[in-house]
Each structure stands twice: as C-alpha cells, then as structure tokens.
C-alpha cells in the first residue's frame, strides 16, 4: 500500500480529472475572446461533459485505499459520488439557460460548480478526519461564492455572507471536535479510530469531540438545530444555486455523516444514535411545521429539505444495514424529486419576471397544464402518497427504523409527514383549484424540460421496478457495514460484493 515515492493514483483518477478540467475551463473562460454569455455557455456545456466523464470514471473505479488511508473508494463512495454528480449535472443543465435569461451568464458559475463537486467527492471518499476537512472546506468555499453569485442582488449577497459566517462557525466546531478526538484517541485515521474507539470502553473526551463533529456535519445537511441558515440562503441565493444546494451538497454531507458515524465511531453507536434520533425527529417536526406559513416557494423548499433530511437521518438512526440502504434509497429519490421541483420553479415566469410566491401559481393547471401535472406528481410524491416514489422512500426508512426498535421515531415521522402533506397539497390546490391571475411565460427550455420529464416519470413509475434502485443501494450499503466490528451489524455484509451496478443517473 505504501509506496515511498508516490501512492497509487488510480483510485483518485476521477477527482484528478475533475480538478484539472476545472482549472482548464477556468483558463478557457478567462482567455477566450467573445461575449461573456457565449463563453459561459461553452464552459457550461464543457462542464457538463466533464461531469459525465468523471461519472464514467467513477463507475470504473475499483474499491481501494490510497494516500495512506486518507482516500478510500468502495461501492458506497461510488453510489454517493454518482448520485452527487447526477444531481449536480441536472441542476447545472437547468441553470445555464436560466442564467442566460437573467443576464447572469458568467463562466465562473459552472467552474465553481465543478470545484464544489470536487470537494464533495473528496468528502465522500475521505478516510481521515483531515482529508474530510479538506473536502468540506473546498466544497464550502465554492458554495459561499455561488450563494452570492448575483452580486448586484442584496438578498443574494446577504445569503452568501450569512452562509459564509455560519459555515465558518461550523468549520470551527468541526476542527475543535476533530482535535478533541485526536487528543483522546491519538489518531485521525478512520480505520485506526474504529479500532481504538471500538474497544467498548467509554471515551468521554472523544464523545464530546464527536458531538462537535456531528454538529458541524449536521450544519452541512441543514438538520435542526443547525438549520437556521437554510431558509434565508435558499431564498436569497439565485434559484439554480438553490436547486444545486438542495441536491448535491446534501448527498455528499449525508453520506459523509454515514461514513463517519458507521466507520470510526461505530464503537460509540449507542451514543451518537441518540443524537441522530433527536436531530432526525427535530428536523422532521421542524420541517413540517415551519413550512406551513411560507409563501415563498424557495423558502418552502428549504423547510421541505430540512424535513427530508430528517427522514433520511432516520435511516442512520437505525444504525443497521437496512437503515443505510434506506438512507441511500431515500436520498436518491429525494434528489430525483427535488431536481424535478426546481425544474418547475426555474420555469415559472410571468412577463419576464421571476415567480417565487405560491399564490402566483394559481390556476397553473389551466395555463400550463403539463407543468402543473408534473408539479402535481412531484408534490404528491414529496408528501409520500403511494404509489409514487416518495412513498417508497419513506417506507424504506420507516421500516428500517421499526426493525431497529426506533418505533417512537417512526411514529414521529409518520405524524410529521401528515403535517407536511398540508403544504405540498396546498401547492396542488393552488395550481388546480384557484382562479388563474395571470398566464405564465413559455420559458421551459429543453434541458429543463428533459430533467423535469425524466424526474416525474421516474417518480411516477418507480414502483414498477423498485429493485433497480434497492439492489444497488443494498450493495452500496455493504462496505459501510462490512467495516463493522460490532457483531450484530455484520451479518448482512456477507452477501454484499463490490460490483454494484450503481445508480443510473
């Protein structure tokens, strides 16, 4: 494993390609002659190509560990990376024409997205608290800039600044926690930590460190009570950025959370499980209640995503292979639904003006029947109405939670999903039963339309072939639980092998 000169680079190939391509595209953007919009378009499409190439490389990657265990790849990282890349590509594709329409088309946007994605991939593959931090910061710095991308817009600047300040607080928490862990365990390597902390003795210092680390990661996934930036940033940031925020970083941070919790800190499962249960329950409840009075659709989606993170965390709270699988299934379906919803939001314009308020969607069923139908399907799915995909997502995590004995959590989940159904259904009610005030511009461009169509069809017909998702998710969950030193979690890992077919984004 250890090579004195250079560690094996093959496992890092996708990340290297992405990094180099990002730099090349940056150069291209800077030195290319021509209008800014044309350059931005070119860079944008090339970025999509880069994401596709990276995805293909990730697909090929074999399970390995390199840089002295700092960087690991396995079926789990592959699943998470493909999901991140898919979500990022979908949102980027939708963003390009939107930015063009808004007169905000600048080549930095796709490049920043590439760097953010690079950070996420680093996070996902992190095998050490240090490399984790590196990925986390790379991602975060890119995202801060993206949030404030519309420099002229006060709200966007405010959003960027808030995100940056609070993000720094979170980073501080993380570093403080990591140093505590290092101080008490003597290592930052995940595998070594697992051995040290897995001896069954109480490690009070490491435990407090763990609380800080979890708090920082909870900030990244916007789980309650570390969520408060989310509504402001979602509302203030440009809509494509919000779309991106609600998808890719969520996947990366959540999978990272799984990796950290189920890897180095698996020995302390009894401790962190309580935190996750509390966070999950609080997120579900908060996401359900706080969204109700919202009139801004982006703000609503912020609370919606807080709630969804709560449901996904329920899978982690189960701390079982089934739970991890449920989390992955939930995440995938969440990404698909969310991308579709933002495709609709991005297309809402009246007289060249953006529409962000829910009452403005009145009577959409008559003015834009197709768009309204797609939105209706997605909203029903978000609310978890069978037979749409959203129902099965919830079903898997609830099932895992119940099997793991987290019945209270499951009940809270069911009840809060009832409350949450209110605001999803309200949108349908507004679209279908209210009198149209004004027509909508026909601005649905091709990439957005394609994303929307794929998303709503997947949501609609998921129940026909659920195994296409659950089987890869099963395989992806295996390495996480396979690293287990805790007896009761081990058995399910046996059947798992590395060759999952991955997620088809």
């Amino acid at each position, binding site marked *: 494993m250890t090579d004195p000169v250079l560690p094996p680079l093959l496992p890092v190939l996708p990340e290297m390609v992405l990094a180099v391509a990002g730099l090349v595209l940056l150069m291209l953007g800077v030195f290319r002659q021509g209008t800014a919009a044309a350059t931005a378009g070119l860079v944008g499409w090339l970025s999509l190509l880069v994401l596709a190439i990276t995805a293909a490389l990730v697909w090929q990657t074999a399970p390995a560990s390199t840089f002295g265990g700092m960087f690991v790849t396995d079926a789990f990282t592959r699943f998470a990376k493909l999901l991140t890349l898919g979500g990022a590509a979908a949102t980027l594709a939708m963003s390009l024409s939107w930015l063009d329409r808004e007169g905000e088309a600048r080549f930095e946007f796709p490049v920043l997205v590439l760097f953010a994605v690079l950070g996420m991939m680093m996070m996902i593959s992190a095998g050490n608290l240090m490399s984790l931090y590196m990925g986390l910061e790379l991602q975060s710095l890119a995202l801060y800039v993206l949030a404030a991308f519309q420099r002229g817009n006060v709200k966007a600047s405010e959003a960027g600044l808030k995100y940056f300040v609070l993000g720094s607080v979170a980073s501080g928490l993380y570093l403080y926690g990591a140093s505590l862990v290092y101080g008490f365990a003597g290592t930052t390597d995940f595998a070594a930590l697992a051995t040290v902390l897995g001896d069954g003795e109480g490690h009070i210092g490491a435990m407090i460190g763990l609380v800080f680390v979890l708090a920082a990661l909870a900030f990244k996934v916007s789980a309650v009570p570390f969520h*408060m930036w989310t509504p402001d940033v979602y509302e203030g940031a440009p809509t494509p950025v919000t779309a991106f925020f609600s998808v890719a970083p969520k996947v990366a941070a959540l999978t990272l959370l799984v990796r950290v919790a189920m890897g180095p800190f698996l020995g302390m499962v009894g401790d962190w499980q309580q935190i996750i249960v509390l966070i999950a329950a609080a997120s579900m409840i908060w996401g359900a209640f*706080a969204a109700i*009075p919202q009139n801004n659709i982006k703000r609503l989606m912020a609370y919606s995503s807080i709630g969804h993170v709560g449901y996904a965390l329920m899978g982690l709270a189960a701390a079982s292979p089934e739970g991890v699988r449920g989390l992955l299934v939930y995440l995938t379906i969440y990404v698909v639904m969310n991308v579709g919803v933002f495709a609709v939001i991005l297309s809402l314009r009246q007289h060249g003006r953006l529409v962000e308020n829910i009452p403005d969607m009145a009577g959409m069923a008559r003015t834009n029947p197709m768009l309204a139908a797609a939105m209706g399907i997605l909203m029903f799915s978000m609310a978890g109405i069978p037979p749409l995909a959203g129902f099965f997502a919830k079903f898997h995590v609830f099932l895992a939670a119940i099997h793991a004995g987290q019945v209270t959590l499951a009940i809270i989940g069911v009840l809060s999903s009832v409350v949450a159904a209110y605001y999803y259904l309200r949108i349908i009610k507004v679209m279908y039963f209210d009198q149209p005030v004004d027509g909508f511009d026909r601005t649905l461009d091709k990439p957005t339309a394609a994303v929307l169509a794929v998303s709503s069809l997947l949501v609609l017909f998921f129940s026909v072939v659920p195994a296409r998702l659950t089987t890869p998710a099963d395989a992806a969950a295996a390495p996480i639980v396979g690293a287990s030193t805790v007896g009761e979690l081990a058995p399910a890992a046996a059947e798992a092998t590395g060759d999952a077919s991955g997620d088809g984004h």
Partner: protein
Amino acid sequence: MYTLTIFLPLAAAIVTGLFGRTLGDRNAQLLTCGAVGVSAVLSILIFNQVALGGEEITVPLLRWIESGPLAFDWALKFDTLTAVMVLTVTWVSFMVHVYSIGYMAHDLSKPRFMAYMSFFTFAMLMLVTADNLVQMFFGWEGVGVASYLLIGFWYERPSANAAAIKAFIVNRVGDFGFMLGIFGAFLFFGTVELDAIFAAAPERAGETFNIFGMEVNAITAICLLLFLGAMGKSAQIGLHTWLPDAMEGPTPVSALIHAATMVTAGVFMVARMSPLFEFSTTALSVVTLVGAATAFFAATVGCVQNDIKRVIAYSTCSQLGYMFFALGVSAYPAAIFHLMTHAFFKSLLFLGAGSVIHAMSDEQDMRRMGGIWRHIKLTYAMMWIGSLALAGIPFFAGYYSKDMILEAAFGAHSVVGQLAYWLGVMAALMTAFYSWRLLLMTFHGKPRADEHVMAHVHESPPVMTVPLMVLALGAIFSGFIGYDLFVGDGRAVFWAQSILVRDGNDSIEAAHHVALWVKALPVVVALAGIAAAYVMYQMAPEVPAALAAGFPRLYRFLLNKWYFDELYDRIFVRPAFRVGRALWKGGDGALIDGVGPDGVAAAVKDVARRVGRLQSGLVIHYALAMMLGVAAFVTYFVIGIFG
C-alpha cells in the same frame, strides 16, 4: 344452450354499455334485441326439454365461495318452475326490447337504456336459475340495481331520482329480511344450497331455535324472513309504496320490470321455496293474509287514481296480491300460472298505455284524455284485450288463472282461505271497474286534451304495435293453452319435483270440486264491475263527482293511497333525517371535526406561526442556536455519564 340463454343478455349489456357510443344507436338496439331474441328462442327449447320432457338439469359453472362449512357454486338449475320463468322472462323482455326501439326513438341515450334493459334480463335470469340462496340473492340485487337505474333513467328529473331512491330503499327493507332468511337457513341447515335445504326440511320440521330469548319454530322464522324479502320486491302491502312511484321510469321499463318480471320475483321465490313453506302453516297463513290484503287494498286505490300508469301500477300490486294468497293456500301452480298470464296481459296493458302516452305527447293524466279511440284503433283494441284478460272475462287468459286462484282459496277450507276468497272477489269487482274506467276515460267521451295535442294523436309505428300484438296473443291464449298443464290434470307430471305440495294441502284438487256458484261469482262480479263503470263514466258522468262529494273522507283516503306514504314519512323518513342532521351537525361537525381535523389543523397553524417567528434573519441568533444545540447535546451526554 343453457348457459348461452342466460349470458347472452349480459354480453349484450356489457358491449352496449361500454361501447355504446362507438356502436351507434342502431347497432346497440340491434345487438341487445338480437341477444335477448336468441335467448327467447332458446328458452322455447329449454321449456320443451325441461318442462315438457321432464328432464331436470343443473349446469355447474364454477366454484364461487368456499369458506369453512360455507361452500357453493355458481350453477344454473333448470326445472319446470325455472323453465316457465325463463320462457316468460325472455319473451316479455324480447317484446319490450323491440318496443323500446320505437318508444325511445326520441331519447338521446338509447345505448344506455338498452344496456340496462339487457342487464336487467340477465339478472332476472340469474335469479330464476339460482341453485342456491346466495346466487338467488345476487340476481335479486341485480334486478334491484337495474330497476333503480331504469326508474332514474331520466336522471335530470328530480322526481325520477326520488322515485329511484325510494324504490331502492324500500326494497332494502325487504332485502334485509331476505338476507336474514339466508343467514337463518345457513344457521339451521348448515347450507345455502336449495336441494340440500329441501332434503333436510321434512325431518327437521318442528325444531326450534332461539331468537332474542324466544324459542321459535325455525322453519317458520326462516320462511317469514324470506317472505319479507318477497314482500319488498313484489310490492306487497306495507312495502308497496315504491311501485306506483316507479312509474317515473320510461314505460317499457314499467312493463318489463314493474309489471311482468321483477315484481313477480317474490312470487317465484316463495314457489321455489315451497318445500320449506309447506312445513310452516303459520308462514303460509301470513302469506295468504298479506296477499289478500294487498289484492283488496290496491284495488280500492286503483279505482280513484287519475294517472293512467298509476292505475295499472296499483292493478299490478293487486294482482300480485292474488298470486301471494294463492301461494298461501298451497296453490303454487296456480300462482305461477297467474304470474305467467299476468306477465302477458299486464305488459300488454303497460305497453298499450305507453302507446297512448306516446300518442298524447307524453300526457299521462286520464282527465286530459278521452275520445281518442278513433285515432288509435289498434292500441284501443289491444287495451281491450288486456283489460278483458285482467278482469277475468271468460276465455281470456286471466279468467283461467284468476278463477283458479279464487277457487283454490275457497277450496282450502281454512279461515284465511275463505277470507282471501271474499277479499279476492271484491277486488275482482273493483278490478273490472277500474279497468273499464280507464278504458272509458282514455278512449271515449269528449276529448279533454287541447287541440294541439289532439291534432298530434297518431298510431304508433309497427315496431311498437307488433310487440303489442304478440303479447295480445299471449293475453288471449296463454290461459287456455296452459290450463291443463299448469293447474289441470297434467300438473303432477308437469311440475314434477320443482314444487312440493304436502298431502292434505292440495287446494287445487279441491278447487276442481267447489260449488258452481264459487266458480261463477268472480265472472258475475267482473261483469258487474264493467257495468258499473259504464254507468258512471258513460251514461251518467256526474255520478263519480257526486260520490266523491258524498263521501269526501273515503274519497280522500283512497286518493291518498290509504296515507301510507304520509305515515312512513312521519314515522321513518323525518326522524331519520332528524337523526342524520343531528349526527352531521353535532356529532361529525362539532365533535369529530372540531376536535379532530379542525382542532388539530388550528393547533398546527399556531405552532407553525410560532416556529416561523424564531426565524429572525439575524446571523447572531442562528449561530446562537447552533451553539445551544451543541451545548445541549454535550450536556446531555455529560449528565448521562456522570449523573
């Protein structure tokens, strides 16, 4: 052949019902008429083989329910009783289908109408071919649904909807009895298959079971419950109120369902269950009394009604009463005989009335008719034939069957039998009276309709008159032809095993030996009734008004149909509405909604507002929340460890 006969109408109904628009009106009509026509032809073959050839047969279709001891098939049971019913049902249905082509010519949804009619025919055939009680119940409910749909066929009329709902609900009362009867039979006999029940009945007669602490005779209880179902479907007194209202449906429906076939289902059912009823004298007495009371009651009401269809409807009610008291005195063959002849002449009368209504531009009130016989001579002749048959004038169909019923009642030599005889004779007098009242008011006298309508009076097209003539043939000859087989010397061979009459109960045999005056009296009173009608409506038209003025209470009593509807409204309908309103406003609205959905929703809204206020927009608050969160978790653990 057997299966085909039953399922052809269903196939036609499905195709027409689902693809009616694609098929077009003409094809839909041809398809349904064709299917029912083929069934009708096949029914002759069945009749020949089963009834005349004495070949009973059961066609098992498939296993239906198998649940513990409850197990039975879908099966078609054909014996003489069934064969007679199938023959009657398919032929009348066929005639009515054809007639409908003409009658519904101006209607917009012909395929729907034809589909319902065919579906009805299928359900009725299922009912009569059932080999177990549940299957019979299936057909029973099937005809109920078809009846509901057809009464409410013109759903844009509120009165039609109300009538449809009324028919359905009143029938539910009877159906509930029927269901309890089925449950009782299963409880007592451990099976719902007819043959098994009949086989077990003789040895278990006299056994009791316990209902609400009372020891009652099991067979009597089952029979009375089943009879409750029959009362509902056959509009016997008490549960008859839906039948006159059912005339809101198109006239062919009235002819087919509410005269010839469905309403006779109760009669059929009691006849079918004769091996059970025979073991309960009590049940038979009840049947006799209810039948006789209905025959008399409906006849009195029929005398004063002014709507042409309502007169015939009450007449139907009355004739069903005859059939029931025939059943009650064990003269089952006579009841079925009357059922068959009645099917012909009553559907003839209804279709004739339909032809009149058609001619009078949808006018149904006889007070606005009159003097039209010259314009529609054929219909006029048909109505005469129908009325003659109904009144029981010699050598028309009704004469044979009705007289046989009355003689059997007399010959039964029981108190209830005597009572039934005398009530029946009085009803016969009134039957003749109102029949001729109808004829005279409708066709004779001065025209009372306005000129516009009179100018339009025209004979119906052949597609309507030909079925009339076919039915007229039945109304004239079916009694004469069937007499020997049904109730004469050939009856033992003819009915074979399908009807059981215990020794000593054979009232038909007794009927052949009653005194001459007993036989002659019904004819005499019928002629008297006709004469009375002539006097009152032809010679001295001022008499009816004078009578009505002279006995205002009696007149209003009859005109308002003995106040049955008002009584039910007072006792059942309004209290039910009041209870419903109380539950709705108080129970559901205030209690469940208030505490449940509304209360919870209000609470949710409140919580949401508070939560929203926490989102201040200030970074410092957000950071504080994060820190508090971390602190809370750490504290939690520290307390967990040291506390």
